[in-house]
């Protein structure tokens, strides 16, 4: 099968133990900021990352805007008002704690990153005089130029700056290590987290990490419904190897999850029906404010929330009279009227009025600064756009002053997926947290995409730093606890035994992932029925019992891919259990039932939580506003930080 000999030493039989005060699991934005924060608190910090920390994670290659920086000097919105708007816009199905942290501390993190060497303001005066630039601070804003809560940033500079800071602070970085499980005191589910196990992605060597406190900073689950064996890396929005390992190992360790029944119809899967994000004609996110024209050159008008046509480009970036701000960005798809901003008129109206397809994004008619900031700064800085879009299109002759870029599909998402083609996107489920960003497991903290209802860069950075602070507080008064040798040996057996299988007859990672995706599309599609969900669960349990033990990997790299699919299998079961637990439809959770009351009953306005106790699934529910008063509770738990630390 392999044409090349594996170039790295294979060390299936080797084992190493590493001890830390604070163990950070995942080296993306949240993980780096968590490690920086803990190291600044004097803790001995170990960071474990599957890729290469310098540029890995969802924000590793860049980012063009930072949302909800409500405490920046130009912001006109308080963190309380903004967080409450984010909660209200989702009927309460959102993470009040983590988004308050994002709104309250996001700008502090930007200043931090700037000190590390990241670029957060227009220091070169490239955009002097632009409507979106504050001349005094040189900060640049996106979307709503009135409220000034979202900043445009030079995100390609961020991750390398964080990496240098980690090194400066003496954080021990373990790159190319996949964390495979959490270690719990005595090896028992639900007990204190005392460390984690890992495997080297190139050599297969086994690692044991001991930590007084651990911070879960891994990505959200992916490839649950969407899979392509040929373009696995394009299946989802997040990086290929970010498939929800953290959720899976947390579930096995006894961690509690919320909102795992939520999934949305797929918006991004360039392996399937969509095109590369930000690479086609559109007017959302990076491209917000771009003009859209039809194929005869006629412009599709922008309108305010009442349908009044806007007569200038400037008004695309302003709330209407009397509206304090509007919401736009990554997780805002269909905002409520009160938060609704300008939009181009609906696609269907345009067709009725005789506008000709295809449509195009047209930057040529924008004011020069608006054109330059989209095609140049934003497309140059957003993750996955600098090289394959900005550089490549430019080299192929694309000139934003002359050319118009084609739109695909019928809306800005560039594709129409089938209802059963789903993904965890737009505030998906994850670990349940308290005001310390601690999970229900003693010693286990959580940040970034691991949290329930997570979203963007600023959220990851702010919650990472916050979790690092609180984990340090715990770590400084806790002891290192010896791990259970039996738990470690069970994990080693799980990982390595399959290498003894016969490659001629065993199943590889792609076949298993494809089968899980098909099962989830079949039994857990758009409309949920208990009978189907239960059948799907049985099917996945069969895979676990009969297929997983009969798998094979040719080298450490393929073993990692296989272990990831085992995690996808675990996460799929969390989703099925959560779907079974929610008995009525919920619009806010994009959750439709075919066998229960259609509308959301008052009683169902609760967060349903799921966890395992003694390997039995335990369902619970808590009020949507369980976190209480935002400002008061933040103050109560962060006295030292407010004091200026």
């Amino acid at each position, binding site marked *: 099968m392999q044409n*090349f*000999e*594996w*170039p790295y030493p294979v060390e299936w039989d080797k084992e190493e133990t590493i001890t830390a005060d604070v163990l950070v699991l995942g080296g993306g934005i949240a993980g780096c900021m968590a490690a920086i924060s803990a190291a600044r608190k004097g803790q001995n910090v170990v960071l474990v990352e*599957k*890729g*290469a920390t*310098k*540029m*890995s*994670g969802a924000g*590793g*290659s860049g980012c063009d805007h930072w949302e909800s920086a409500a405490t920046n000097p130009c912001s006109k919105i308080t963190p309380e008002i903004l967080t409450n708007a984010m909660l209200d816009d989702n009927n309460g199905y959102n993470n009040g704690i983590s988004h308050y942290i994002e709104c309250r501390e996001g700008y502090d993190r930007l200043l931090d990153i700037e000190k590390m060497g990241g670029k957060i303001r227009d220091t070169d005066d490239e955009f002097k005089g632009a409507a979106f630039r504050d001349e005094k601070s040189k900060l640049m804003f996106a979307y709503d130029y009135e409220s000034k809560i979202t900043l445009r940033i030079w995100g*390609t500079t961020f991750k390398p700056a964080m990496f240098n800071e980690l090194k400066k602070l003496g954080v021990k970085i373990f790159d*190319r290590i996949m964390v495979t499980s959490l270690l719990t005191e005595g090896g028992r589910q639900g007990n204190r987290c005392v460390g984690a196990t890992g495997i080297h*992605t*190139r050599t297969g060597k086994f690692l044991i990490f001991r930590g007084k406190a651990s911070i879960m900073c891994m990505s959200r689950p992916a490839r649950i419904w969407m899979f392509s*064996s*040929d*373009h*696995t*890396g*394009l299946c989802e929005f997040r*990086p*290929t*190897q970010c498939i929800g390992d953290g959720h899976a190992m947390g579930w096995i360790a006894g961690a509690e999850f919320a909102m795992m029944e939520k999934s949305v119809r797929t918006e991004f899967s*360039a392996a399937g029906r969509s*095109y*590369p994000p930000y*690479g*086609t004609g559109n007017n959302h996110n990076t491209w917000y404010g771009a003009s859209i*024209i039809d*194929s*005869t*050159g*006629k412009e599709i008008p922008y309108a305010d929330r009442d349908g009044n046509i806007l007569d200038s480009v400037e008004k695309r970036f302003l709330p209407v009279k009397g509206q304090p701000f509007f919401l736009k960005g990554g997780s805002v798809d269909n905002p409520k009227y009160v938060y609704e901003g300008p939009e181009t008129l609906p696609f269907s109206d345009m067709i009725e009025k005789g506008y000709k397809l295809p449509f*195009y994004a*047209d930057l*040529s008619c924008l004011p020069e600064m608006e054109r330059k900031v989209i095609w140049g700064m934003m497309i140059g800085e957003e*993750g*996955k*756009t*600098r*090289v*394959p879009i900005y*550089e*490549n*299109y430019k080299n192929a002759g*694309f000139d934003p002053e*002359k*050319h*118009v*870029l*084609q739109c*695909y599909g019928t809306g800005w998402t560039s594709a129409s997926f089938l209802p059963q083609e789903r993904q965890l996107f737009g505030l998906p489920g994850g670990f349940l947290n308290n005001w310390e960003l601690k999970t229900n497991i003693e010693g286990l903290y959580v940040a970034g995409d691991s949290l329930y209802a997570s979203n963007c860069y600023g959220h990851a950075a702010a919650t990472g730093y916050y979790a690092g602070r609180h984990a340090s507080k715990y770590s400084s008064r806790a002891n290192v606890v010896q791990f259970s040798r039996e738990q470690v040996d069970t994990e080693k057996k799980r990982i390595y035994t399959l290498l003894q299988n016969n490659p001629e007859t065993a199943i590889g990672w792609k076949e298993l992932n494809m089968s899980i995706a098909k099962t989830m599309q079949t039994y857990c599609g758009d409309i949920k029925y208990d009978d189907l969900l239960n059948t799907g669960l049985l099917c996945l349990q069969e895979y676990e019992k009969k297929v997983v033990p009969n798998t094979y990997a040719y080298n450490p*790299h393929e073993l990692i*891919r296989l272990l990831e699919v085992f995690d996808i299998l675990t996460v799929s079961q969390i989703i099925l259990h959560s779907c079974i637990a929610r008995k009525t439809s919920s619009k806010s959770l994009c959750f439709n039932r075919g066998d229960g009351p259609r509308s959301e009953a008052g009683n169902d306005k609760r967060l349903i939580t799921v966890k395992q106790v003694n390997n039995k699934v335990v369902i619970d529910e808590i009020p949507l506003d369980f976190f209480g008063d935002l400002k008061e509770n933040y103050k109560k738990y962060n006295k030292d930080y407010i004091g200026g630390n």
Partner: protein
Amino acid sequence: MPVSKPILFNAEICTGCNICADICQVDIFIPNPEKGKPPVVLYPGECWYCGCCVMVCPSEGAITLHHPLMNQVNWIAKSELQTPV
């Protein structure tokens, strides 16, 4: 033959330093068995198309990244749009 070839090396420019292989978070490359030659794209289907390999390459033009053919998109000169008759 892989379904798509996300990454192509120019063997005349590439020095085989493997910096691209070291930065790739998905780890789709392996170093070339022959020292000084471009890395081998062993797992092209796993490419996330982030472009970090190109961004860190010290030898301009040694490495190019392209979306698969099915994801190549179209643009047109605005002056060529058909105005209604």
